[in-house]
């Protein structure tokens, strides 16, 4: 299941970056991938829609909130956390 979250997040990021999913690697930053501030907001929207979660993110201060967007791996981990929280909440 964890792999599938990773694959789906990478697919979302790849689409924003106009790359093949195989060209997006966990250690890369969004900057490396050429995703600008509007691209970040769109990616987060796509993640919220795909996983039915609410992502705590304010464009005024991307470092605040608990959602780490410093690399592709960090985003995947953050989404895994949100999805896990959601399951707990429903249980």
């Amino acid at each position, binding site marked *: 299941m964890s792999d599938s979250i990773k694959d789906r997040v990478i697919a979302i990021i790849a689409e924003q970056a106009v790359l093949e999913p195989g060209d997006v690697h966990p250690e890369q930053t969004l900057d490396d991938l050429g995703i600008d*501030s509007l691209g970040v907001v769109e990616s987060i929207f796509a993640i919220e829609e795909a996983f039915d979660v609410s992502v705590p*993110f*304010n*464009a*005024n*201060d991307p470092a*605040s909130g608990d959602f780490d967007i410093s690399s592709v791996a960090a985003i995947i981990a953050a989404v895994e956390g949100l999805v896990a929280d959601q399951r707990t909440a429903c249980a």
Partner: protein
Amino acid sequence: MRRVVITGQGTINALGRNVADTLEAMREGRCAITDLEFQDVERLSIRIGAQIKDYEAEAWFNRQQISLYDRFTQFTLLAAREAIGQSGLSFSGDLAARAGVVLGTSGGGMNTLDENYRSVYEDGKNRVHPFVVPKLMNNAAASHVSMEWNLKGPSFTVATACASSNHAMGQAMLMIRSGMADVMITGGSEAMLCFGGIKAWEGLRVMSKDACRPFSANRNGMVQGEGAAVFVFEEYERARARGAEILAEVVGFAMTSDAADIVMPSKQGASRAISGAMQDARLNPEDICYINAHGTGTAANDKTECAAVADAFGHHADDLMISSTKSMHGHLIGGTGAVELLACIMALRDGVIAPTIGYEEPDPECALDVVPNVARSAKVDAVLSNAFAFGGLNAVLALRAA
């Protein structure tokens, strides 16, 4: 060259129902940002705004008028009534033909759109009120002002997002200066505080959930407001000949386009507009004592605006005052420059500089005198009012004391 002066001003906004109450609130540094109240607000993640509370349209307008006047039109008409009343003008014959109205708005009849979309999409109704189109159109307010006061000259609406009012007032000024008109009713209005209006803004992730703190290091976004401000711009010789009270002179205007990004501001574009307004006004940077900032409270705007001011003013940037009154009345989007012009006129007439409230922590990237939290007394001869819109469209006005 024909000179342009202001002979009337009017407003309704969350700080006050008229100019006197609004200026008193600005002097006292009052914050009008509160919990939003409207249908479905519980479905929003952003629930604060500078909303005009306890407003009853029925107290001002009859049933037939309300069926045609969206909230943004109502605000416009109330502000125009105060402004034109103060000017003492009535429009007939030749003057009516030489007088027009140019207003700014971004969303136009947003409440009308929202209510009728809800009706047909959510409630499944197949019929809407016959006046939906004339009520929601962006030029409805300008047209109703022209009808109410018999203004038969050049009239239209300007929509440049957050710079709409400044662009509108700039057009009004240029029309009088060029001889196209003798009197122009101008300013702007916005009424976007409804479910759809805020929901759309939430998506951009630039709104604050708790407060508007322009220039403060801990700022975390903009907060919307609503309302209108309207002014009477008049050719100087005409105003003087009839013995009108002159509130201020509109001496310069400039507009530029960043041609760069649909949302991120540009230092160069803003700086060129600031310098352009001073050149148009034949003012030197040292002549400007106060700037009413665009100052939205977003990370991007405030640091870019401060850099632009530093760029345009050089060392004098450290000597002038710059404040954002959005911290008090919120961001009125297409109406914001108009409400902010009230603070500029207060600085020139009363020597009172409205503060930037909510200021908590200095930001090295906004290292200017932002008049934190408390209003200040100062003798001021010339001021600027900045507006920088999404889409990279910048409009700056320069005013002088009468």
